[in-house]
């Protein structure tokens, strides 16, 4: 028995050594496919493994908000929810063991060296750490947020701020409204892994006043809850509609009773599923992903692996004639079919195992690069629960059997009599060539489809970043934090001083900026129209439109020369602010709207909107509706990603702004940025400067699409390489099989170009047919993908034709060597002896 296997091994190894090209194509092609599969496997496990490490993860849920757009009916999902929900949920649902709300606050903290720096501070209920049981290194999780000035740090923050983990009781100084305050460290927790959706590393206790300020209608944070063991999330969800009715207050706006529950619904999402829930993330810096992307990558990886298997099947059956004699002899010597099948499957498993070794090496080599590229800490371990040894062995078994089964059945079928008697071609039954052709068509269909998709993804990404956004994209600097009280008081001084920086041509403040993640809305009712409409509500300095380069379509821009253009409110005391709002509502406000807003308000064209009055619920129903007079209409502009719909907007002069916007024209943009920073630091040294070039921030919006495009390009390249490896091998065997025919043709007068044309046509046909399969599939997939963009390229024939032509060129290039060799062969070699 052992002798038999030894014999199989000898024959298998020698067969490989004798046909090095065949062996290389099979093993290397398979290794590429397996490596792609391994990498995707690691990636998928990483992406689906978010927050699985949390103790009791199965019972921990995030309360997400579902928003239904009243105009379009479109539903969006977001992680951020109304913190006000937390209290009543805990009261109404006994299944909930514990619940916590957490708001994110951008604060200014002093570094070790005393410099002011922005920091993202999570303000949470004390129950947070009993729900999200992140491992504590120092301190007591139960009491960590007991006091108002408690501060819990991650290991990284502790090391950065103190250089040690033993920091309990030490203080971190913050600055609010120009005043210093102290936070006392009460706990240190282990750094969160990168595949965690919990994006915090500084946690303090939420203030009761903040809770009171952010009631129903204020979506400012996240709510996490833990269910009691055995409690069902579905049961809680089933009770949510009733809970909405009982707990969300109804208010009267413009004579109608409305409630937050009209447009919003709530749902529980397990903490492990948050990452792939498709919800808008609470923290912008957390990587987003969705199940469709993961599924797409998995399918593509499997397709590539299937292509490598196809090469295996194709080459094995193509060279069947060479093994036919061996099969016949073994049969004559007493082997039965079962033994032969075992032999050939064994060979196939051996090849696959060899390929897997190479694949693991390839994966090891490319993983660090891929991990950096996908901004994830993908790691490959061999043993244990997360190890790849078991999946790899499984893959070897599946691929080895899948790739080897058909050749094994096929080869073992040969009848010894026929094979030993006949010339070679008689050993090959008709129809196997057709199967090979079908498989080649399938391979090229995948390659062409991937190439076409890559082209579309790239052109859309390029388009999104270059299409006219409705403002002048180049030469723009933006800085956030312009509304921090110390610098907000000096708004006009800052604007005047920044204007003096060499290279600066215009400067303004606004509550909107390019690539902003923040949306501010107001409900607007138009006289004579039934429903109110939701429109973007953005404070902007009168110079904002000019600074951005947004064109005026009708009327005039805002100006400080008209008293009614100003919505300046006192910011010194809450009482002064309230009085200001009341007098503003009584007086009315002039605004500029964009074309889309004018259209949604029901005006036929921009000019028709000028001078018209609408009413906005700007300050809440207790203050009454603010009358707005439209004095100007500007062109629409796209401040956010091309994925998001164009936004209707109202611009008003709010006197204070969250962003500083600077237009420059200078050969030294960095110098201008530094100049702006100097002005900022001089006027408000305690407010950190957070400024950058707008196009860099915009590019960040499309970083993910670009990464996806590059990943697709990588896959397409891999698919093409594997398809070409297969074609190369097939061409070699076809050339060999057709040597006699080509010899005959040459004897009867065919020249080298005639033969080349013949072979080129033979290999072009499957590639051309592959187009017919690939084009509709790629078109369908890309139309679907492009539908995710509000502004998108036309899906024309160019990328498809180009992909087809490229595939054809690559295929012809691949086979040209063989074709030329066999075309130049002296025919007598082919014809002298059979």
């Amino acid at each position: 028995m052992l002798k038999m296997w030894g014999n199989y091994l000898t024959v298998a190894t020698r067969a490989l050594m004798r046909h090095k090209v065949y062996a290389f194509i099979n093993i290397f092609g398979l290794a590429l496919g397996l490596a792609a599969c391994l990498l995707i496997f690691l990636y998928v496990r990483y992406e689906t493994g978010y927050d699985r490490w949390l103790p009791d993860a199965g019972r921990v849920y995030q309360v997400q908000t579902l928003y239904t757009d009243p105009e379009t009916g479109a539903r969006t999902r977001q992680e951020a929810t109304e913190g006000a929900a937390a209290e009543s949920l805990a009261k109404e649902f006994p299944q909930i063991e514990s619940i916590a709300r957490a708001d994110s606050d951008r604060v200014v903290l002093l570094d070790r060296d005393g410099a002011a720096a922005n920091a993202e501070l999570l303000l949470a209920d004390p129950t947070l750490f009993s729900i999200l049981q992140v491992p504590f290194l120092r301190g007591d999780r139960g009491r960590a947020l007991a006091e108002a000035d408690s501060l819990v740090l991650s290991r990284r923050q502790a090391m950065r701020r103190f250089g040690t983990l033993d920091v309990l009781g030490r203080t971190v100084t913050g600055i609010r409204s120009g005043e210093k305050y102290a936070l006392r460290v009460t706990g240190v927790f282990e750094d969160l892994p990168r595949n965690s959706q919990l994006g915090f590393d500084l946690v303090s206790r939420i203030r009761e006043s903040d809770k009171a300020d952010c009631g129903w209608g204020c979506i400012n944070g996240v709510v996490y809850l833990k269910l009691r063991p055995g409690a069902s999330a579905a049961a809680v969800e089933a009770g949510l509609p009733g809970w909405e009715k009982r707990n969300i207050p109804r208010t009267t706006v413009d004579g109608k009773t409305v409630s937050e529950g009209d447009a919003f619904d709530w749902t529980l999402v397990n903490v492990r599923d948050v990452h792939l829930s498709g919800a808008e993330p609470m923290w912008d810096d957390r990587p987003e992903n969705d199940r469709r992307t993961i599924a797409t990558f998995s399918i593509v990886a499997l397709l590539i692996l299937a292509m490598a298997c196809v090469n295996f099947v194709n080459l094995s059956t193509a060279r069947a004639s060479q093994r036919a004699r061996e099969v016949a002899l073994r049969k004559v010597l007493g082997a039965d079919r079962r033994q032969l099948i075992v032999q050939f499957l064994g060979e196939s498993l051996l090849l696959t195992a060899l390929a897997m070794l190479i694949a693991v090496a390839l994966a090891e080599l490319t993983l660090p690069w891929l991990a950096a590229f996908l901004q994830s800490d993908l790691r490959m371990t061999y043993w244990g629960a997360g190890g790849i040894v078991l999946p790899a062995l499984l893959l070897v078994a599946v691929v080895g059997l899948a790739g080897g089964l058909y050749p094994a059945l096929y080869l073992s079928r040969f009848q010894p009599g026929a094979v030993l008697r006949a010339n070679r071609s008689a050993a090959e039954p008709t129809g196997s060539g057709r199967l090979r052709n079908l498989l080649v068509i399938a391979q090229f269909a995948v390659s062409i489809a991937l190439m076409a998709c890559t082209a579309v993804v790239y052109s859309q990404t390029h388009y999104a970043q270059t299409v006219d956004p409705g403002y002048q994209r180049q030469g723009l600097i933006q800085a956030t934090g312009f509304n921090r009280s110390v610098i907000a008081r000096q708004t006009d001084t800052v604007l005047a001083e920044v204007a003096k920086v060499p290279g600066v041509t215009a400067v303004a403040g606004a509550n909107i900026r390019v690539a902003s993640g923040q949306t501010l809305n107001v409900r607007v009712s138009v006289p004579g129209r039934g429903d109110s409409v939701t429109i973007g509500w953005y404070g902007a300095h009168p110079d904002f439109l000019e600074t951005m380069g947004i064109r005026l379509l009708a009327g005039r821009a805002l100006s400080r020369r008209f008293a009614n253009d100003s919505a300046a409110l006192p910011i010194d005391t809450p009482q002064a602010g309230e009085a200001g709002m009341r007098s503003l509502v009584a007086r009315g406000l002039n605004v500029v709207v964009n074309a889309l807003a004018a259209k949604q308000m029901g005006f036929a064209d921009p000019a028709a909107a000028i001078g018209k009055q609408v009413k906005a619920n700007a300050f809440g129903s207790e203050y009454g509706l603010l009358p707005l007079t439209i004095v100007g209409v500007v062109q629409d502009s796209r401040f956010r990603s091309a994925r998001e719909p164009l936004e209707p907007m109202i611009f008003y002069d709010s006197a204070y702004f969250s962003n500083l916007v600077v237009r420059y024209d200078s050969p030294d943009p960095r110098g201008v940025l530094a100049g702006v920073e100097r002005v900022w630091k001089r006027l408000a040294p305690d407010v950190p400067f957070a400024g950058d070039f707008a196009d860099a921030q915009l590019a960040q919006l499309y970083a993910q699409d670009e990464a996806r495009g590059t990943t697709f390009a990588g896959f397409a390249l891999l698919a093409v390489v594997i398809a070409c490896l297969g074609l190369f091998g097939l061409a070699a065997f076809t050339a060999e099989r057709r040597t006699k025919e080509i010899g005959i043709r040459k004897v009867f007068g065919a020249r080298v170009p005639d033969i080349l044309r013949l072979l080129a046509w033979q290999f072009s046909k499957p590639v051309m047919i592959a187009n017919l399969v690939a084009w509709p599939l790629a078109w369908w997939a890309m139309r679907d993908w492009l539908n995710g963009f509000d502004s998108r390229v036309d899906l024309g024939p160019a990328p498809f034709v180009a992909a087809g032509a490229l595939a054809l060129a690559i295929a012809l290039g691949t086979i040209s060597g063989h074709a030329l060799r066999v075309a130049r062969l002296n025919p007598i070699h082919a014809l002298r002896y059979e």
Partner: protein
Amino acid sequence: MLSMRELSRVYRTDTVETTALDGIDLEIADGEFVAIMGPSGCGKSTLLNVIGMLDSPTSGSYVFDGREVAGLPEAKLADVRKHNIGFIFQSFNLVDELSVRENVELALLYHDVAAAERRRRVEEVMDRVGIAHRAKHRPSQLSGGQQQRVAVARALVGNPKLILADEPTGNLDTQHGEEVMKMLQQLNREGSTIVMVTHSPSHADYAGRVVNMLDGKILIERRRAA
């Protein structure tokens, strides 16, 4: 038709030098039917290949149809070959993937012949060798004798001045062998020049002249009494 003087063909590898043809002098006139005989390895097939310009002599002169062809480049040889010579092989050398008609037509594809004319000539020659009723069949569906008829038709369709047959009956049984020989004899009577390599003395009797070879040299030539 052709004349060879002091013609040699030597095959060299790194270690061995084999003289396949050694100082051949041979004249073949228009309308002749010549049989070449001899033991295996005597150089018959090499001689036939050189005559058919599938192989080039190492030295000596080869004048075909009044033109010196020894030393012509391959492309030129292919051109001369295609217009003047038809081949018949022992193993038929039909293309399995093509039908009988397509196999015959193959020999005209690389000539400058209009499609209609090509069809006419293919039908005519298939008729002549008695294979027209099998025009749509694949070679694998025919008997050996029928396959060789297809090969003969293919050799004839280009109206060659010279037909070269390399053991045309070698793969056939006696009856089919005789049939093919009678067909070649008939073609010769109708004016074709034929050079045939054969092992069979009885088939050599169909030829007007027999050339006997040994170790690359022509041993004796004898003419059959007419």
